[in-house]
């Protein structure tokens, strides 16, 4: 894999609270390249969700830099950062977070709502994304009328609909039984093979091992990265 780095973290720390301060992340550096499929794995409380939020620019690091497609997130204001999220980052959450009163198609199309894409185009792309996750036949259903696995597929389609630079998934199989979870893993691998850049967070090492790359974290620090050294070198040589 020799794609451009789409996400780079450099010495990222995150400290919560004042007394006593909790260091959720302590100097995390790695980069994710175009088309990569990586798992961030660690036990509960190790800082995975914090890391995902920082990677997704939902939260700013206490120190260190986050670059999306070479753009330093630190320099962007709320509006610019929001537009960056709208266009370059797709999120998948453990709880799906689908709008119950909207159809599957509308839920997926809303992935582009804040990206400045006109409605007909949003729906056209939503149909494409639903096709990719194999749910074209459920487009007009309400999320309450489909299974948990299908809901997570809808959420994945919503994350993919804008063809973002990177998809961040936080325990995407966490609310699913193991068989449904396995099919979601298959889908993620398929999407990865088709060129999407996906980072999945999990506490389950066996799930992480199904992906090409594993970044293991413990107590807010990267303890191993199956291809970390190389990436760090790249990140450091990048002009900032």
């Amino acid at each position, binding site marked *: 894999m020799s794609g451009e780095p789409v996400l780079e973290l450099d010495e990222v720390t995150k400290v919560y609270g004042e007394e006593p301060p909790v260091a959720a992340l302590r100097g995390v550096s790695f980069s994710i390249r175009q088309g990569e499929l990586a798992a961030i794995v660690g036990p509960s409380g190790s800082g995975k*969700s914090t890391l995902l*939020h920082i990677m*997704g620019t*939902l*939260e700013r690091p206490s120190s260190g830099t986050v670059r999306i497609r070479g753009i330093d997130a630190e320099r962007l204001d*709320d*509006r*610019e950062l*929001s*537009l*960056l*999220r*709208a*266009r370059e*980052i797709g*999120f998948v*959450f453990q*709880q799906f*977070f689908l*709008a*119950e*009163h909207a159809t599957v198609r509308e839920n997926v199309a*809303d*992935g582009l*709502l*804040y*990206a*400045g894409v*006109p*409605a007909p185009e949003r729906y056209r792309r939503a149909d494409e994304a639903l096709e990719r996750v194999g749910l074209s036949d459920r487009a007009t259903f309400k999320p309450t009328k489909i299974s948990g696995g299908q809901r997570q597929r809808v959420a994945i389609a*919503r994350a993919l609909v804008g063809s973002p630079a990177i998809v961040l998934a936080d325990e995407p199989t966490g609310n699913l039984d193991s068989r449904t979870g396995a099919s979601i893993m298959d889908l993620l691998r398929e999407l990865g093979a088709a060129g999407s850049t996906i980072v999945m967070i999990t506490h389950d090492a066996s799930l992480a091992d199904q992906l090409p790359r594993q970044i293991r974290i413990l107590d807010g620090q990267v303890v191993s990265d199956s291809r970390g050294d190389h990436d760090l070198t790249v990140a450091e040589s990048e002009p900032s």
Partner: protein
Amino acid sequence: MSAASGRLSLKDGLRVASVGLRARRLRAALSALGIAIGTAAIVAVLGLSSSSQAGLLAEIDRLGTNMLTVEAGQTVTGQPVELPTEAPSRLTLLQDVQQVAHTGLIKGKGVYRSPIIPATQTGGLQVRAASLDLLTVLNTNVAEGSWLNPGTARVPVAVLGSVAAERLGIGAAFTGERVWLGGQWFDVVGVLESSPLAPDVDTSALIGYPAAKRYLGYLSLARGVRKAGPPSSIYVRADTDRVAATQPLLAPTANPREPDGVDVSQPSDALTARAAAAGAFNSLFLGLGVVALIVGAVGVANIMIISVLERRSEIGLRRALGATEGQIRMQFLTESILLAAIGGIAGVLAGIVATAVYASSKNWAIVVPVEAWAGGIASAILIGAAAGLLPAIRASRMSPTEALRTV
């Protein structure tokens, strides 16, 4: 990267802002209800007062403002002064006077349903002799039957004013009805509609001057001749443009010897004052409307605060999908405004319907002032904005990660 390209279209903005309302329709309807009640009360109060004013003004217009009333008054020392019998004919000679009619109050006589009713129980009704052109001058219509004519003016028949007919219990089917008047039966030949320019007529039984003279001994000496009379109220129609000029001439003309003992008035003045009073809305109901509106506003604010708390994950998701703080703030602010505006519009419609129903039952024109309905909707929108501002700011300040955290 231009931030403007992430702006929502109006349609998308409204769709997003109505998500919460569509998801919880009953709750939205109930919180809009408070605003609706307040707005309806205010619109109805303003609408009804305008409509009743319009009704009175229309009536004044129909009755004309060019009528002057000349009545027997008192001397400076309080002695009653009768009008001379020839006063009506003298007034007719004035240049700008078009028509003159008159009634003479026959004191000490009552009108009763039957002879067994004690004479003191007059029911507030009076007996008056009336000149035959009275109805023309007063612009009063006959409700049932007919008015007096030169023939019936000489015989014991009576025409009842609207209130008198009602009190005596004589309605539409009065044929053959009689009233006991001055010790004998008088046949009722007609009933009048109400006579706003001369309320005294409403409470009277009217008979002809010749009949009054003959059967009730109502006469006075004028230049040595015993004539029926004297008149106690003279109704004068003047040239519409000359009313003000004519008014001061009436007292000296009617009674040159004692002009101070004559009361001259313009009855449409009283009606105009009543119209002005009707236009002054009922401030009690208006106050209640305002209170309902305030309670409604508190309700909307309350619902919006709860809504923001309940929809934390929606807020977090929207931020993850790229909504700016401003867009989240706008979403909740618009939702609150929509909620209040729905209440406001429903209230305005209810207020208009209430006004329409009441006004048409009174035969008034339906008048809902622009200030009332536009103001109703505008104040609902302002209330929505005020009630939603704090919750909307809270929603936008919520950190995305906090919003996404599920408890």
